[in-house]
């Protein structure tokens, strides 16, 4: 485990400077008027956004990850080794967070970067859902269209194996991103960094997202005395956001009134997404976790636990939209915005978009609440889990002529100050995932207080989806069989048995040695938090 | 066996009158030719009889029965199209059998009749050949056979010989005539070729511009054209028509053609024209009746065409043209010289210069 030791050494080094940065940032926040006075930058700050209240929080001194990145870029620029521009491939819906100024008076992130470094940031939009396709195309055809790729986090393993993305260890060592900084950095510290940015012990990506699937409900329905009374009559306990899957299913069934345009729960059931909700039920089957694979690479899904999770998953269709199997998140968001569902499980940005006074299309503004994922009671307590799924992560293309500079841009963008500022911007899909994000006033304003704490707690209960090589093939096989079970064309037992068979074949293709190592690394990131009942 | 009566039959397409008030009765078993230049309304008439067109007004009676509302499939009419409309995707046999099959005749009957007709039309050797590759002459026979096999009471033929080569045309004319003799149907034959009409038809109906101009036997039409159109249309070349003036001297009436001479009228015409002294008329005479002997009319000789048995002499005087046809044994006049000729009294016809109608000879 040479890499692990490297990581610990780095975290040791960075934790001190992180504390110093905090010490500077906090008092400045208390004196915003003074900070604006001079060049717009607060004392001791070398860069960051200006022009709005609280901008100091996002400014940085020389001894911060952002400051080091900018200094290093400027040094490269002076040495004449920097390019005129770098090209970033990014999902269409996320571009706004980088290009639209936020809040009023601020520059956009793109403007700030270009202003501070003089290097043009060129963003190429990629249709949602096409990110990985486009990147693989660029890698395999040697297209060289991008310097930086932004793809789903699960694909890091695939991309690293393909040789298309740069191993960033060297740059991390040199420029110290301090991702695991306590209070500011990734949830779970070093473990979180390894989960989100690492693959087989090396850093290959920089996390730019927090797609921890989070549960939401409608406060107007849950708070309605008539509903509460009716529910208590029927089930003998108080109507409240569900804590267990049993409660969840009962509440969903209670609210499921399709003829009145109300659906019990709209957690996704479609291709490519639905199985994330199967995961949530499956992994809580044991305490602290029911794993997908044993340490030796044996699939564990074709088991009593797998079958039961599948049966629950299929049975839950009864309180879903009749069209659930064809609905993706755009339909889910659209439906929730018009008050079409009582509960849902979605990206953590759902309240940011739908509980938003600027969204004329939403009828649920002010009526959204968040809750922890439903769990399952075991002898040692309650296990509730949600999943990390999708989650854009940026990597440097091996075809880029300036990998170090690209990395520096990502260090700058993905560190807690700039990232907090960016994620607060309602114009895109980048969601909070760092501790600093969750406590940032602007982020909390955009994402709402009620939601932020739940997200932070959900993150602590999040299991990763498959992120080893062949991830897509594994997921597709599971997906295909789960959908067959959902549509009734296959029994739960057959679905699990089939999946296991297909997984074996995929494992053979991927290479079992490689796989076992990746499975172990993946497991290290699983939480062991068990709540008291 | 059917008699066809057309009563006040008319057809208009928008403003265009294709057929105006046609009255014609075609007797049972008669071979009637509808003759006229293209666009004269003969095909329209035929299509109305067949039922492909609905008349704008008037009635069509088969044996006294009005058939305007009878759909064409039920009229019992045989029809031979100008280009035969042979089903080229079928064999000769299938073509012949088509009508019988369509009418649900029993298989044995079909086989028998097809065989019989194939023999009659000399098609036995090619019964199983695809119709697509056959020569025009055979297609034509096949087309007739295909309709005739149903023994229709009325047989309509739309210019059936126009695509046939000249040598075969003569053969077909006699064949058609003999076929009609055998079947004894009422036959209506549309043609623009007067030779076909004259040689085959019992009677000819001459049409122009949607109007029926004259109906009569071939000889009658030839000898006594009802108007200048018929006069010019029938005959090869057609009748000479010259502008003239009636002159009465004593009891005799003659026609003076200015600058050319004068012609005496036969008694019957003299009687008819007696009251018209001094008025303009048109005088007509057949080129064949011109005689080189004697005096009367003088014109300048233009082209002299020797075509074997006959010689056609083109005559001209100050823009007025006429033709003379002389037997080959008569020495033709010298070209570019004036030539004097006579027209026998009974060869002269008179026409009204305004209406073009013939002045009918009247008995005393």
């Amino acid at each position, binding site marked *: 485990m040479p890499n692990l030791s490297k990581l610990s050494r780095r975290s040791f080094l960075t934790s001190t400077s992180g504390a110093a940065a905090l010490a500077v940032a906090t008092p400045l926040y208390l004196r915003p008027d003074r900070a604006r006075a001079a060049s717009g930058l607060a004392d001791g700050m070398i860069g960051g956004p200006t022009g709005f209240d609280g901008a100091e929080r996002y400014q940085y001194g020389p001894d911060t990850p952002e400051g080091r990145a900018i200094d290093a870029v400027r040094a490269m620029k002076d040495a004449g080794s920097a390019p005129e521009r770098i090209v970033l491939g990014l999902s269409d819906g996320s571009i706004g967070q980088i*290009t639209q100024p936020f809040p009023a008076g601020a520059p956009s992130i793109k403007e700030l970067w270009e202003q501070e470094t003089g290097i043009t940031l060129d963003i190429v939009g990629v249709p949602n859902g096409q990110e990985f396709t486009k990147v693989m195309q660029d890698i395999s055809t040697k297209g060289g269209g991008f310097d930086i790729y932004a793809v789903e986090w699960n694909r890091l393993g695939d991309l690293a194996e393909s040789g298309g993305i740069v191993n960033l260890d060297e740059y991390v060592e040199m420029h110290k991103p301090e991702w695991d900084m306590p209070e500011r950095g990734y949830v779970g510290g070093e473990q979180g960094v390894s989960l989100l940015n690492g693959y087989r012990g090396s850093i290959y990506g920089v996390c730019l997202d927090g797609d921890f699937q989070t549960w939401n409900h409608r406060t107007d329905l849950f708070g309605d005395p008539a509903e509460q009374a009716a529910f208590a009559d029927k089930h003998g306990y108080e109507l409240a956001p569900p804590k267990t899957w049993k409660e969840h299913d009962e509440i969903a069934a209670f609210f499921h009134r399709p003829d009145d345009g109300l659906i019990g729960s709209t957690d996704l059931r479609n291709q490519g997404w639905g199985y994330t909700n199967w995961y949530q039920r499956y992994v809580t089957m044991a305490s602290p976790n029911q794993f997908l694979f044993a340490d030796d690479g044996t699939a564990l899904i074709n088991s009593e636990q797998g079958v039961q999770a599948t049966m629950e998953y299929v049975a839950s269709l009864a309180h879903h939209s009749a069209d659930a199997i064809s609905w993706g998140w755009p*339909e889910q968001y*659209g439906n929730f915005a018009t008050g079409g569902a009582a509960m849902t499980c979605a990206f953590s940005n759902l309240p940011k978009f739908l509980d938003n006074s600027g969204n004329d299309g939403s009828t649920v503004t002010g009526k959204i609440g968040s809750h922890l994922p439903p769990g399952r009671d075991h002898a040692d307590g309650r296990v509730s889990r949600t999943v990390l799924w999708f989650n854009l992560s940026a990597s440097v293309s091996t075809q880029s002529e300036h990998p170090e500079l690209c990395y520096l841009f990502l260090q700058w963008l993905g560190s807690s100050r700039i990232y907090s500022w960016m994620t607060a911007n309602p114009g895109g899909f980048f969601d909070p995932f760092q501790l600093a994000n969750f406590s940032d006033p602007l982020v909390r304003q955009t994402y709402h207080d009620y939601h932020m704490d739940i997200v932070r707690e959900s993150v602590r209960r999040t299991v990763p989806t498959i992120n080893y090589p062949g991830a897509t093939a594994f997921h597709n096989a599971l997906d295909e069989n789960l959908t067959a079970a959902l549509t009734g064309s296959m029994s739960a037992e057959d679905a699990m048995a089939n999946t296991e068979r297909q997984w074996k074949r995929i494992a053979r293709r991927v290479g079992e040695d490689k796989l076992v190592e990746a499975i172990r690394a993946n497991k290290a990131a699983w939480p062991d938090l068990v709540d008291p009942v | 066996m059917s008699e066809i009566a057309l009563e006040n039959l008319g057809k208009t397409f928008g403003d265009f009158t294709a057929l105006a008030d046609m009255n014609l009765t075609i007797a049972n078993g008669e071979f009637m030719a509808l003759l006229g230049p293209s666009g004269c309304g003969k095909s329209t008439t035929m299509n109305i009889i067949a039922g492909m067109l609905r008349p704008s007004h008037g009635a069509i009676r088969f044996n006294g029965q009005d058939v305007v509302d009878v759909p064409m499939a039920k009229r019992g009419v045989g029809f031979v199209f100008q280009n035969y409309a042979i089903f080229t995707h079928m064999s000769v046999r299938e073509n012949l059998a088509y009508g019988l099959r369509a009418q649900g005749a029993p298989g044995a009957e079909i086989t028998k009749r097809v065989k019989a007709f194939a023999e009659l039309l000399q098609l036995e050797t090619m019964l199983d050949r695809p119709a697509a590759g056959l020569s025009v002459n055979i297609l034509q026979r096949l087309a007739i056979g295909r309709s005739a096999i149903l023994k229709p009471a009325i047989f309509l033929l739309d210019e059936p010989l126009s695509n046939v080569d000249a040598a075969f045309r003569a053969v077909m004319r006699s064949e058609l005539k003999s076929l009609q003799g055998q079947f004894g149907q009422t036959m209506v034959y549309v043609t623009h070729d007067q030779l076909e009409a004259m040689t085959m038809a019992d009677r000819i109906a001459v049409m122009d511009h949607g109007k029926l101009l004259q109906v009569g036997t071939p000889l009658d039409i030839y000898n006594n054209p009802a108007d200048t159109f018929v006069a010019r249309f029938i005959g090869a070349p057609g009748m000479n028509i010259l502008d003239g003036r009636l002159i009465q001297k004593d009891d005799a009436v003659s026609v003076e053609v200015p600058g050319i001479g004068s012609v005496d009228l036969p008694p019957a015409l003299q009687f008819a024209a007696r009251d018209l002294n001094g008025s303009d008329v048109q005088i007509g005479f057949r080129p064949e009746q011109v005689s080189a002997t004697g005096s009367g009319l003088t014109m300048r000789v233009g082209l002299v065409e020797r075509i074997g048995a006959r010689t056609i002499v083109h005559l001209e005087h100050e823009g007025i043209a006429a033709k003379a046809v002389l037997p080959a044994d008569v020495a033709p006049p010298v070209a570019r010289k004036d030539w004097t000729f006579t027209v026998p009294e009974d060869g002269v016809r008179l026409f009204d210069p305004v209406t073009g109608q013939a002045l009918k000879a009247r008995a005393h």
Partner: protein
Amino acid sequence: MQRAIPFEIFRYVVILSLVAISLVPTLWMISMAFKPIAEWSAAGADLTWWPRNPTLDNFRFIFGQSSTDLIVALERTAGRPIFASLLTATFGTLIAMTAGTAAAYGLSRFGQGGNLPLALIQLRLFPPMAVMIPVMIMWSFLGLIDNWFGLSLIYGIVTLPFAFWLMKTFFDDMPREIEDAALVEGCTRWRVFVRITLPMMRPALASSALFVFILNWSDYLIALLLTTRDWATIPVYMASLSSSMTGQLYGAKAALGVIAAVPPIIMGIAIQKHLVRGLTFGALKE
């Protein structure tokens, strides 16, 4: 020909009902295009047939001029994709028609290129998806990814079979006497082709070109794989019209769909006369 009244009634009933059914999706698209966000935002729930408050907002939106731009960060307006679609479909049609017409004439008149009919049928039969890997590698090697010429070129190739087949049947049908007459008068073969044959083939060229254009204009898959930003075509761009605020931007998609239907319809009307004759594929020779 005379038809009975009951038949006429039958005819109108059948035609009108089929027309009505076939219009439903089209009218739906048009109706969606004019609905304000509130009326299309929820998939499936509370949808009305007609816009209650018709608006041009969707059209304004895709051209970047909407008041509702908070809905999604619209980085690219529809203008560029419409231009890309027009340019690549037109140029692709040009390539297919030029190569196809020339080859069809060469084969029809001089018997050259006897291998083409089979090769082109195979080309058309083959699912483009199955060759996209090598094509992407080739195109990338040639620098033709996300390039208007690259997309036009593949369009020209995949529709070449149709251009060739349609034009070949027209040339087969065309009487040679006219060309022969011109040849006797001393024109060169090339001159005859350019000055006599092609002008006579104008209706045929027009209807074939429309057909080929519609095929190119309709493509989604190829453009999806061979373009990224600059030359994304209408269908590819359309995929980006979704947002977290309201889900799929159906109104915007429908508005773009309405716009996308305009060029083929205009072309169709322009050559309506030749359309029916043009599609007999010369199959009706005696």
